[in-house]
């Protein structure tokens, strides 16, 4: 019992730290994605009064008083702007109505007859819009927008026109770049791991060192290095020109090719190492055994080695793909405007546009995809036979 308590005492600091600085930030990010902007928090009294309203009977004086009190309590134009935008998107006419009302409320500190001020305050649809906006502190607007959908005025979920949003295109692009990188990693990493596993002594050590050294090197250093190699007058273009293979320099920087080359370089170790560890666990006499039973080398590879090493390939692919979909630095530095992946868009919404709702919604999409891939990877690597 005492031992168990001591163990809990040792684990507690890290647990508390991660709860505070890992779980909480993610929770805030997610709650930002699903919470309504402005209106509910800014109009608490109105929200309470409208909660009891049947949404069809004429507006009451009580509702008017609550709204006037709430508007009076708001002292910054930012909040007023947020509310107006939200209400106006639900019912047009709010822009002028709110401007008029807010200035009247600010001039006059006494009781105010809103209907006398503007007769639209006597109409049910305007109050319905406020009631709808303040009814729930949660919204699915951002999550739907993250996949290019929206709710129609009647509440149905519809696709946005292709011109209105580009998030699906970005998700698709992220998927294409990550899949391309994974494929390139398999094409280079699988044979590489096979050659390394069949080599012995210093040759194997050298091949492994060539994988580990880049892995330990700073990501920024590697990205900067690719920047140097890929530029128009860089070493690669110069070499190809010197060999007479090309006349004019190939465009390798700020485009898709460059991004995939650099990302493949960065993620290749995560493909080679799992495959290698599976391969060296395969008994060395299996292939000679297959050969002695009459299988030619190709058949021995196809029927014996490939099925056995497939686990390593799948683990490596999951790792590479999972890391690739969340990549930010390499596409930001090596890619052009049309190579930016979901992470760049999240960063843009968060730091450029200060739209935390959209940043959070796209963050949820990326987080869910990553965690799902990780769960599959985790199952795969723990369910199998013991790893070497």
């Amino acid at each position, binding site marked *: 019992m005492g031992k168990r308590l001591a163990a809990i005492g040792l684990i507690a600091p*890290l647990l508390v730290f991660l709860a505070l600085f890992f779980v909480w930030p*993610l929770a805030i990010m997610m709650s930002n994605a699903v919470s309504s902007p402005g209106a509910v928090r800014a109009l608490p009294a109105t929200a309470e009064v409208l909660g009891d309203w049947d949404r069809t009977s004429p507006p009451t004086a009580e509702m008017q008083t609550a709204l006037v009190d709430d508007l009076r309590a708001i002292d910054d134009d930012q909040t007023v702007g947020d509310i107006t935008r939200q209400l106006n998107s639900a019912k047009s006419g709010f822009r002028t109505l709110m401007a008029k009302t807010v200035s009247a409320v600010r001039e006059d500190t006494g009781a105010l007859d809103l209907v006398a001020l503007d007769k639209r305050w006597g109409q049910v649809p305007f109050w319905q819009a406020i009631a709808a906006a303040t009814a729930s502190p949660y919204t699915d607007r951002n999550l739907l927008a993250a996949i290019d959908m929206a709710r129609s005025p009647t509440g149905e979920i519809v696709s946005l026109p292709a011109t209105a949003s580009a998030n699906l295109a970005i998700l698709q692009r992220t998927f294409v770049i990550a899949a391309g990188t994974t494929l390139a990693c398999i094409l280079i990493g699988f044979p590489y791991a096979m050659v390394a596993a069949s080599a012995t002594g210093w040759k194997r050590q050298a091949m492994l060192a060539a994988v580990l*050294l880049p892995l330990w090197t700073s990501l920024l250093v590697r990205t900067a290095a690719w920047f140097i190699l890929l530029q128009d007058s860089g070493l690669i273009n110069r070499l190809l020109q010197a060999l007479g293979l090309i006349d004019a320099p190939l465009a390798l920087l700020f485009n898709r090719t460059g991004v995939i080359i650099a990302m493949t370089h960065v993620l290749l170790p995560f493909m080679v190492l799992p495959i290698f560890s599976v391969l060296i666990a395969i008994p060395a006499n299996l292939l000679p055994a297959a050969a002695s039973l009459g299988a030619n080398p190709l058949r021995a590879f196809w029927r014996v080695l490939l099925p056995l090493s497939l686990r390593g390939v799948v683990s490596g692919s999951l790792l590479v793909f999972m890391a690739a979909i*969340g990549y930010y630095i390499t596409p930001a530095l090596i890619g052009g405007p049309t190579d930016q992946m979901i992470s760049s868009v999240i960063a843009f919404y968060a730091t450029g546009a200060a739209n935390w709702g959209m940043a959070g919604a796209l963050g949820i999409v990326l987080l869910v995809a990553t965690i799902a891939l990780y769960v599959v990877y985790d199952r795969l690597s723990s369910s199998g036979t013991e790893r070497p």
Partner: protein
Amino acid sequence: MRVLKITFALAAMTFLLAPLVAILPLAFTSSVFLNYPVPSYSTRWFAELFTADVWRRAIINSLVIGLGVTVLATVLGTLAALGLRERKLLFSGFLRTTFLLPMVVPAVVLGVGMQLLFVRMGLANSYLGVIFAHTVIAVPFVFVNVAAALQGVDTRVERAAASLGASPITTFRRVTLPLAIPGIVSGAVFAFATSLDEVVLTLFVAGPNQRTLARQMFSTIRENISPAIAAAAFLFIVGTVLAALAVLLIRRGNTRRAP
């Protein structure tokens, strides 16, 4: 077949190592362009690195933040790894997975949440905030390394110490800790390296005063690329090689001592 194998292996190794080799000589170029050919060699970009205000401050910031992260992550990760040795603990598998999750979650997603949280907590644009942010992603490395080292510690040795009259604290100090030290040191090195190379979280939580070396390199590549990048990269690579050697030496020293 054999020729094909060798050619492929050499080509792939070139692909893996060429970028690291290509950037090193440019650290000593006298030109203002980050490109070959190098007209003549000079140390002007190292001078730039250590005298220009932005670079010097970035280096100092990186060292201060890196040390803070190393201490915090090493303490938290080591304690947790020690705690998780207790096998009867409920949810120990769940906790193990949880402690590794920060490695998996995309940095941009975490960065958005941290930016929002740190503003609320008053940690935005502060050294402490950056240290906490980096520690979150550095701690799994410490945990993994220490847990692996502890797995190699035979519990019978500790029981033997206890049976010979050593108190739990003496057993820990004289038996467990010396055996776990290589794991702790490797973890600390990884934690420092993680902090040194971190850009994304830094972009979200650090202010202009906490600009780190990695952050400064990021914006230099993005805005006005200069050979100062190569000089900084040179320092990074030398640091990496030294750290790797240190880890290897400690591991080797330990395996020699082990029976």
